[in-house]
């Protein structure tokens, strides 16, 4: 409507990248990397999610207001995880009675 039509080649390339990353995430999960298995899995998932949001959902060409809403959503997700983890990760750091 407002944007030029994206060539099929671009969509096919994103599709190919997403499939390759899916195979990568299964392959990496079979390696013994300790803590880095989780880091690798989440890094791959974030890359895949970013590809879908930017190309398939066309946020790269969206208005600034739409980008702001997407960013705000992700920021609120970050608040959720940072506050939950700062609570559970820090329990037991201080001496004193345990009430949980």
């Amino acid at each position, binding site marked *: 409507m407002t944007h030029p039509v994206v060539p099929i080649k671009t969509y096919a390339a994103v599709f190919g990248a997403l499939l390759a990353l*899916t195979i990568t995430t299964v392959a990496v999960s079979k390696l013994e990397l300790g803590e880095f*298995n989780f880091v690798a899995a989440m890094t*791959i998932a974030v890359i895949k999610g970013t590809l879908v949001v930017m190309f398939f959902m066309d946020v790269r060409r969206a208005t600034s207001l*739409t980008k702001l809403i997407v960013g705000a959503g992700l920021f609120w997700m970050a608040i*959720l995880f940072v506050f939950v983890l700062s609570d559970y990760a820090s329990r037991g750091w201080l001496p004193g009675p345990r009430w949980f």
Partner: protein
Amino acid sequence: MGDSEATLAVHEPGLKHHFDDSAQQFQSSTLGMWVFLVTELMFFGGMFGGYTVYRNMYPDAFASTSHFMNVPIGAINTGVLIFSSFTMVMAVRSAQLGQKKVLIAFLIFTLLLGCLFLTLKYVEYHEKWVDHHIPGPGFQYADTRYFHQAQILFFLYFAMTGMHAIHMIVGVGMLIVLISMAARNRFTQAWYTPVEMIGLYWHFVDIVWIFLFPLLYLIGHTK
């Protein structure tokens, strides 16, 4: 009569009169859809938050469950959903170009891939039922140390994949509506907003699965 007809403003096809032009109308729809998707993000975020807390509490119990997950089906389903996102984006592209038959073909293709995903999900759920891996009185677990803690993971598995599957079913229903609208010539090159908006929803549900797959199937890595 003739005079009043002459004063009517000529709109672009599909344009509602309270918008300046089609571009503004489309941007408003996109913004509204994204506000909805952010509420969906918060909704799934709560469950991902619960998952984070319990995985941190019982990392070994959670890792032990991966042995009982059907990784091949999970991986194939990831591919199926990614493929369906590709056919969905191709449907939107066909709508942009005004190719009605191609649009309907891609929408049907997307619908079938969605049904394939749900069928494979059913196979997995049935497997869990047969193996007594459904949390509750009938739950059985090979490693008795983790009997209680593993149930938490299986509870999260059914809650999260179940909510995801409900979203897929809603998406399939909306695809049927889109196919019927397209068949009745409701979309033009100037107005195909529902195709684009349902597309956004479909991709969002795909992204949720992209995160669910490694978090639920690939926790324990040594096999």
